[in-house]
């Protein structure tokens, strides 16, 4: 069955291509090569300049984190005139627990959310992408519709629900729903990815007598590594940065997460601890950036898409 993807393009529609033009003489070839290299260089210069604009905010944040607090707003430049690591120490120990505690809480919630989304959304996505069942379009619309309502008008009913369940100040309200595929965005994402996969494979497997579970776990999942990585990365980042639901469901500072704890540095009604806020903000980028770096390794062509051996 594995060889069935090695199909050939439809040769009937082939048309003349400029790529095979007249033979080139040597100087022309050299010049062309040079042009290609020049073009590549230009691309890189462009990409780097563009990258600098993208990097500026991070540099600025690091620079602010390193400035003594009173200089953050008085001093304009990117390069601090004096460097201090005070903000990091002060920020780390500013609240009831050292910040490591909040990082751990965020990590638990985020890990749960990632696992939950990967499991539940991929299952649902397979059904929508590959199976036929009654009212499929209707359920698909319901699925998409469920993410269109702003959180602000459902958060109070949600609070009442979770409070009835005794889940307030636990991580359940932030993890359990993910195992029940309430992040419908990711179902949609995976449906779209699965639908880019040729159907030949699973149809062949079906005829060989494989069950849908087998097709799902043995064919679709391995072929969908980029989609799963994307889901994991996005879930991680969204959950890590999520504020409102964590704020509402986690009121006890023992279970606070990084974003909730970070906000307590800012008090628009009084004094704000900008220095520690910048310092911890920089630190809190670490896990998400690290996860992104780790996850993007899976954004390479998977075993399946490079051809099956």
């Amino acid at each position: 069955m594995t060889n069935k993807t090695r199909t050939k393009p439809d040769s009937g529609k082939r048309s003349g291509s400029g790529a095979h033009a007249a033979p080139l003489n040597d100087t022309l070839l050299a010049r062309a090569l040079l042009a290609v290299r020049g073009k590549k260089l230009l691309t890189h210069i462009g990409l780097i300049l563009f990258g600098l604009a993208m990097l500026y905010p991070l540099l600025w944040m690091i620079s602010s984190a390193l400035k003594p607090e009173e200089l953050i707003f008085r001093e304009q430049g990117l390069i601090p005139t004096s460097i201090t690591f005070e903000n990091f120490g002060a920020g780390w120990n500013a609240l009831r627990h050292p910040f490591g505690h909040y990082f751990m809480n965020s990590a638990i919630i985020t890990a749960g959310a990632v696992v939950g989304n990967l499991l539940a959304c991929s299952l649902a996505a397979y059904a929508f992408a590959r199976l036929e069942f009654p009212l499929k379009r209707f359920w698909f619309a319901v699925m998409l519709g469920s993410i269109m309502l702003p959180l602000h008008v459902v958060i109070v009913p949600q609070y009442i629900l979770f409070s009835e369940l005794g889940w307030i100040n636990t991580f359940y309200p932030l993890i359990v729903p993910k195992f029940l595929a309430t992040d419908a965005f990711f179902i949609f994402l995976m449906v779209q990815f699965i639908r880019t996969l040729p159907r030949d494979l699973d149809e062949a497997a079906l005829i060989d007598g494989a069950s849908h579970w087998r097709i799902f776990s043995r064919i679709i999942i391995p072929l969908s590594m980029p989609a799963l990585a994307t889901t994991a990365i996005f879930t991680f980042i969204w959950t890590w940065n999520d504020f409102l639901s964590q704020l509402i469901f986690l009121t006890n500072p023992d279970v606070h997460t990084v974003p909730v704890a970070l906000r307590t540095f800012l008090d628009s009604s009084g004094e704000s601890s900008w220095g520690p806020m910048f310092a911890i903000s920089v630190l809190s980028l670490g896990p998400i950036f690290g996860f992104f770096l780790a996850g993007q390794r899976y954004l390479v062509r998977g075993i399946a898409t490079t051809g099956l051996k």
Partner: protein
Amino acid sequence: MTAVQVPPKQALPQPVSLVPDPEHKRQSRRRRRRESLTALAFLAPWFVGLIVITAGPLLASLYLSFTDYSLLGDHEWVGLDNYTRMFDDPRFVKALTNTAIYVFVSVPLQLSFALALALILDRGVRGLPIYRSIYYLPSLLGSSVAIAILWRKVFGADGLVNDFLGFFGIQGTSWVSNPDTALGTLIVLNVWTFGSPMVIFLAGLRQIPASYYEAASIDGAGKIRQFFSITLPLLTPIIFFNLILQLINAFQSFTQAYVVSGGNGSPADSTLFYTMYVYERGFNAWQMGYASAMAWVLVLIIASLTAVNFLMSKYWVFYNDK
């Protein structure tokens, strides 16, 4: 879709019989029922979530949209009052206009950036992971509270943009705090976070079987031709997904405007977004009934736009599984 040149499906034995044979009919009915049951099993977690977690609060907010619920205290049925009230509410109209401008300007821009860079980066540029990471950084920062200060650093009266304009002798305003330009800076902020759709595009590009390109090369199709006959058509489901995703996200955009404007749509409501107004009515003015009604109108707006997109998608989105 005539230009699409992708491998056709292998000739597979089709389970559908052309002869109306009762034995076949029964078989296919049984097969369909079995498939439905399988689907139910795959959808089980989602169904449970829908019924236990999503549906309750959703329906509660729908019900409350017909009441004068104020968060504290009792509520009374007021019929369609909350819905008709929107038409006479100039701030609602303002919020809707701001959001519409924001969505229809920033989403196409953001997606074009994302697609263009994904395509450039996917051409095997050396150091791809580094570029990809750098371009993704703004998306990580996008909802940070630090963004409020950062955006002033860039678009403030003494910000980078004005420093740059100063070279040309142009005296800039405080772009973030001018009612004529504040919305523009939020659009820039959204475009600047093009990293997320870019990553999804890159993932989509990586999902295209390499065998297609190999085969096309053997057949002598050039790069450009390969792009139009393989890359683009096979990427359309992902483009479509990104479009829907960003559309919904942009309509619900809250955090960035909230953080940058200080939570009140300042200056002079020029950055008052739809969901910010919903939030303000609900949690600040304690008119949760009205807020719920606005939220449901938003659902209607997004849903109809999404529906239009789904209808249109027949003409330009190509699914490989057909």
